[in-house]
């Protein structure tokens, strides 16, 4: 990550205007969520839940999924392990007498597989919105209501202002929120607290047993390097 420098292509202007320029750059960086400040981080008063994977817990500030923070998950095509990563968390959250809301899932979750992972299937509620706007509304409403332990969303549009709204709604009730943007990764930054990439390992032998994860953004630390996690060592969250 590189910070805006004072002298880039403004060598002949006054220091004052250079400073304002820098301030503008900075606020832009903050807007994009690329900048974190020491005093903001990490707020560990939030409830933290283990992800169920030791390798992933180590990489996440706080040692697990923090309630009230939005996490974006990127993957190539369905069947890349994008849901496997969440199974222990959903198993734990679904024990609460609250809903886990699935907004616009791309297919039907297969109940026997969820049940095998220890998920209380009856607490899964699925919404099929007719528009992107309706999807955002459902997610916000669900999080603000306090009646959901987690909100999962598959968004076919991706707008920073909406991600920020979701992030605010999640913080309000300490709701877990995971997003699978269907738009591809936008490198210009996101208001979401976490952005991670998940996929199958390159090694043929590990394809069945491992997932490759990379934290592209994590609030409270610099982005990480890709690492492998063994899905067989999954434990309860």
């Amino acid at each position, binding site marked *: 990550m590189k910070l805006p420098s004072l002298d880039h292509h403004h060598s002949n202007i006054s220091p004052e205007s250079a400073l304002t320029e820098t301030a503008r750059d900075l606020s832009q960086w903050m807007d994009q969520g690329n900048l974190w400040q020491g005093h903001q981080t990490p707020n560990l008063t939030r409830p933290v839940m283990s992800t169920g994977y030791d390798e992933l817990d180590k990489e996440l500030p706080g040692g697990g999924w923090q309630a009230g923070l939005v996490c974006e998950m990127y993957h190539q095509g369905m069947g890349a392990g994008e*849901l496997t990563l969440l199974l222990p968390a959903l198993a734990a959250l679904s024990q609460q007498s609250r809903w886990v809301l699935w907004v616009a899932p791309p297919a039907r979750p297969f*109940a026997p597989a969820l049940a095998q992972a220890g998920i209380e*299937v*009856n607490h899964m509620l699925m919404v099929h919105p007719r528009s992107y706007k309706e999807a955002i509304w459902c997610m916000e409403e669900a999080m603000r209501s306090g009646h959901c332990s987690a909100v999962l969303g598959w968004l076919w549009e991706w707008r920073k202002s909406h991600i920020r709204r979701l992030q605010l709604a999640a913080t309000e009730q300490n709701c877990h929120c995971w997003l699978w943007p269907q738009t591809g990764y936008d490198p210009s930054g996101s208001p979401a607290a976490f952005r991670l990439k998940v996929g199958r390992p390159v090694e043929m032998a590990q394809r*069945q047993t491992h997932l490759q994860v990379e934290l592209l953004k994590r609030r409270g630390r610099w982005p990480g390097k890709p690492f492998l996690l063994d899905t067989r060592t999954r434990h309860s969250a």
Partner: protein
Amino acid sequence: MDFQQPNRHKTHPLWLYLYFPDLFLHSLHVPENQPLAVLNPADHRVRQCTSAAIQAGVDIDMALPTALSLCPSLETLLLEPLQEQKLLQQRAVWAYQFSARIGLDTPHGLWLEVGTMLKLFGGLDALVEQIRWRNHAHWPLFVASSPIPLQARLLAQYQGSIEPAPLAFLSASQDQATTAIKALPLSHLLLPEPWQLALQRMGVKTGADLLRLPLSGLATRLGSDLVDWLRRLSGQQPQDMVWFELPTRFEQQALFVQEVEHLNGLIFPLRPLLSALAGFLQQRQLTLRTLNLTLVHRHQADTHWSFSFATFEHRFDELLALTRYRLERQTLPEPVLELRLLVDEFRPLQPSQTDSFPELRREQANHSRQSTPNSDSPFTPSSAARFERSDNDTLLNRLLARLEPEQLQRLKLTPDPRPEYASDTEDIALSLSASLISATDIQRAWPNAPLWLLPAPSRCHTPDATWLIPRMPMRKSTGWWDHRVIQRDYYRLDTGQQQLWVFRDAHNRWFLHGFYG
């Protein structure tokens, strides 16, 4: 006299008079700066008018031509006595939360018997504070109390008639109320003109003079009506009451002076209506599922909207939110002159309503039983209660207010060995049927199952044999009982980035049926 030390065991009646001046005028939602006068239908004299009209010189009882010459922009409206009565009824429905014994004093006042309620509300001052706090801002309200109904009324009206209004006369004792009455000037007692003149001629100037009159000799001189009035004032004769009875259905309306052209303009007048409705429901321990709105237009026939919710509801916050969401989905056919809210189907409030999370409801029931009711418990605002009773149906209700029912599904696990039926979805309106399938059964029936299932298998090319993961084929040959037989060999397929669930049917065709997400 035992008035000074009221007997604690035998509660004496105490009357609280609620004076709502100019009900009709205030029901119109007139903007502050608009001069408007409500006219007496018989002689077209000004009965009620806005402060803007008063500033322009218009006064009560003024003839219409005079008023118009003083204030040419004055808008006028004929008073509708029937509507005025309805408005007072509406206020009584609202006031029913404070007392069950309410006397109607048309057109502007209510008598509430509160002697028996003081303990519940923690005293007279606390009660009146609740009343003021719960009263909607656009109804000016003056309150006074006395053990004698007529005294309470005079004191309240006196407050309403002078500016600035003096402090409320709130006392539970006869002596204090009588002292206050004695100090009232005769001109503020709102007596009919002839009575006032007759009394003035006798040298009566204040309430004290009135109470001092020897009643026995006055009947022939002043007429029996005035003497009866005086007897009621001193408590020697009981006040006749027109008792208010709660209607069995809820119907209230809001009239608009200026036609409402946007849906947003309906939300504001709906608030007090819904608030009254919530009070109505709370007193009778009822819930509702359907709200009926009627919009009256100038030209077109009335519009009827019926809003049904996913589950029964009785809380104000929820009713407002749900109605708002529903309104957002409607379009106004024409500007609206009048809005009516009608509810005539109710269901008793039950602690065990059809519920998505019965176990939670039980916990809450236990919790609420433990918490002892305190003095203001009947008024716990629903927003505060929301955190305690995390009512999961609320979310369904809110989502359904905007979405169609088929857009919302809950996941269901069945013992059917066919993938299409093993992972079913269920209409959320149905109550939950607990799945009785053990974890080991699932494990045995679905080894290595994918996380995503396509709603219907989709035809695909014959996969490259090197992609199939050979050690995990699963044969499904079943479904004979309902003639939807399947005969498939399922495989896990690795394309490099994705892992898919595919099968080959009896005709050697390949289908994609799921993803290992």
